[in-house]
């Protein structure tokens, strides 16, 4: 499992944006359309209001014209000047009323044209009625003018024009109203349809995004689950492997045990036979065997004895490797003094000084550390045997804050070129006739030191003494 379960944040942002932006755009379009339609409706309403105003104004203008005509006619028929009052009053108000009408139809060219025509016709009627009044005042034949009906015709054409203007305006208002209504209906239905489509679109898109997200989520979940499974599987594999290794180790240990058991038991028996029967030969046939034969038999027995010792040492080494390691406070000084005493007792006549630093406290397996000191001090004792004024020291120094214990002697030493062989079993740097030993002591020492988690080093100069220093892993700081 290489890639971890991972959701691309950009992809997620894009999805979110799409599901927000599209509905927003569509909604804005709908809002724009509705706004536009409301404006259209307002405009239609406005136009209808204006048409009403135009119609009302047209009625007023018409009334003023009628007032003017009836006022003039009444005056002409009666000669009463009171009849002229409405004639003058309406004459004074007419320009304003016409002006207002003109401003109301200013946006419509055909109505404006009609108004201009109206102005012209009215001007015609005004000049004719002025002529009638003049003729009446001058005592001319005004009646003829009236009877001929020229004034009435002119006024009728004006009214007809006004009627036409009103009817066009009414027609237009109707048309506008109908259009606005149609548009409103269209927008209403269109909006509803739009909303429906928008809703459907939103639902579809929402569903699609949800499906995509849920797919993503599911694939993520699957990935995570696969990873968890793989993790569990590898954990199980690891555990199985550990169990298998432990099993193998147990088997190997058991094999080793049975091996050393047979070594201790079976390898010794032939040696006993060699030694025993050599002795039997000496005892039974001793007189018939030559001097040389006696020497051969002696060597045979010495070799068998020596091999027995080697087997013992080998077994001790193997036992040390298998023995359980105890951790206890150990007083190395006391141990060393004990070992030194034993050595001195064994060879009382020797001129050798032991200089053991007091209070060397360590932590480890006392039994095994005793073996270490027995070997190191024993070696020092052995290799100083030909020295007068021999001196063997045990002291501690600090290395990286950890104590390092050293055994130093002024014995025969050894060539550092062979130092690497020192700690291998059966490796010897001296001839057995010079210094006896199986060559397994330092291998044993190193095994014990390593089992404590420490290390051992040696330094020497030929004929200048040797120093062996070791550390022990300490569990307390």
């Amino acid at each position, binding site marked *: 499992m290489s890639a971890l379960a991972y959701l691309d944040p950009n992809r997620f942002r894009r999805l979110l944006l799409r599901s927000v932006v599209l509905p927003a755009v569509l909604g804005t379009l709908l809002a724009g359309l509705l706004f536009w339609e409301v404006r259209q409706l307002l405009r239609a309403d406005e136009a209808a209001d204006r048409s009403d105003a135009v119609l009302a104004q047209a009625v007023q203008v018409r009334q003023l014209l009628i007032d003017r005509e009836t006022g003039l006619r009444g005056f002409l028929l009666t000669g009463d000047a009171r009849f002229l009052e409405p004639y003058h009053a309406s004459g004074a108000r007419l320009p304003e009323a016409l002006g207002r009408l003109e401003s109301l139809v200013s946006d419509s060219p055909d109505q404006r044209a009609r108004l201009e025509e109206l102005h012209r016709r009215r001007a015609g009627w005004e000049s004719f009625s002025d002529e009638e009044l003049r003729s009446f005042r001058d005592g001319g034949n005004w009646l003829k003018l009236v009877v001929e009906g020229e004034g009435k015709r002119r006024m009728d054409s004006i009214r007809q024009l006004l009627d036409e203007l009103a009817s066009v305006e009414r027609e237009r208002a109707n048309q506008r109203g109908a259009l606005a209504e149609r548009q409103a209906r269209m927008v209403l239905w269109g909006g509803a349809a739009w909303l429906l489509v928008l809703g459907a679109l939103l639902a579809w898109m929402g569903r699609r995004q949800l499906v995509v997200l849920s797919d993503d989520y599911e694939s993520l979940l699957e990935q995570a689950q696969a990873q968890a499974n793989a993790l569990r599987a590898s954990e199980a594999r690891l555990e199985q492997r550990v169990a298998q290794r432990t099993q193998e180790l147990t088997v190997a240990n058991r094999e080793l045990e049975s091996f050393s*058991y047979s070594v*201790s038991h079976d390898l010794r*028996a032939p*040696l006993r036979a060699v030694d*025993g029967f050599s002795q*039997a030969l000496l005892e039974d046939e001793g007189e018939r065997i030559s001097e040389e034969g006696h020497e051969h038999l002696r060597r045979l027995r010495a070799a068998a004895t020596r091999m027995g010792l080697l087997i013992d040492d080998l077994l001790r080494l193997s036992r040390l490797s298998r023995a359980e390691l105890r951790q206890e406070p150990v007083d190395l000084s006391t141990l060393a003094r004990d070992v030194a005493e034993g050595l001195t007792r064994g060879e009382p006549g020797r001129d050798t000084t032991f200089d053991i630093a007091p209070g060397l406290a360590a932590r480890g397996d006392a039994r095994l550390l005793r073996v270490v000191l027995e070997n190191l001090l024993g070696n020092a004792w052995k290799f100083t045997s030909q020295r007068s004024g021999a001196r063997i020291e045990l002291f501690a120094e600090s290395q990286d804050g950890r104590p390092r214990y050293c055994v130093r002697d002024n014995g025969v030493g050894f060539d550092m070129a062979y130092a690497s062989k020192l700690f291998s079993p059966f490796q010897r740097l001296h001839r057995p006739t010079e210094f006896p030993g199986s060559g397994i002591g330092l291998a044993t020492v190193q095994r014990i030191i390593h089992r404590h988690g420490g290390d051992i080093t040696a330094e020497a100069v030929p004929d200048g003494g040797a120093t062996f220093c070791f550390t022990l892993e300490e569990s307390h700081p």
Partner: protein
Amino acid sequence: MNGSERPILLVEDNPDDADLTLRAFKRAGITTPMDVARDGVEALDYLHGRGAFAARAGQPLPVVVLLDLKLPRLDGHEVLRRIRADARTRLLPVVILTSSVEDVDLVRGYGGGANSYVRKPVSYTEFVEAARQLGLYWLVLNHEPPSVPPAGTAG
């Protein structure tokens, strides 16, 4: 008590070791007869007078059993266990005489009720000395438990 006539039983599968042990005892001046069983089954047959040792039925038990541990068929520990489990042989002195000084064997040997545990030295000279001391100890110095009469015989 006619101790000198009762034999010593040596349980040893290796003929070299058996011969050398016999010789060592002879050299040490021990005249007590020595019988040899070649494996654990033979040892038990000998003690109970059955199988190849049917002729020994009713004979008194040996003074002491010198028992090797590594044996064909039944090993020494098992032989010791059966000796101690049987009422007739329960108190029979048994000396383990073996090459092994493995802690396991020592613990199992003493745990199984061995009266002594002696390691066979490689050096024959030492072996003769060991045989001498063993003979002196078990035949002369040591007091046996009162003998249990063999089943079915009148003491």
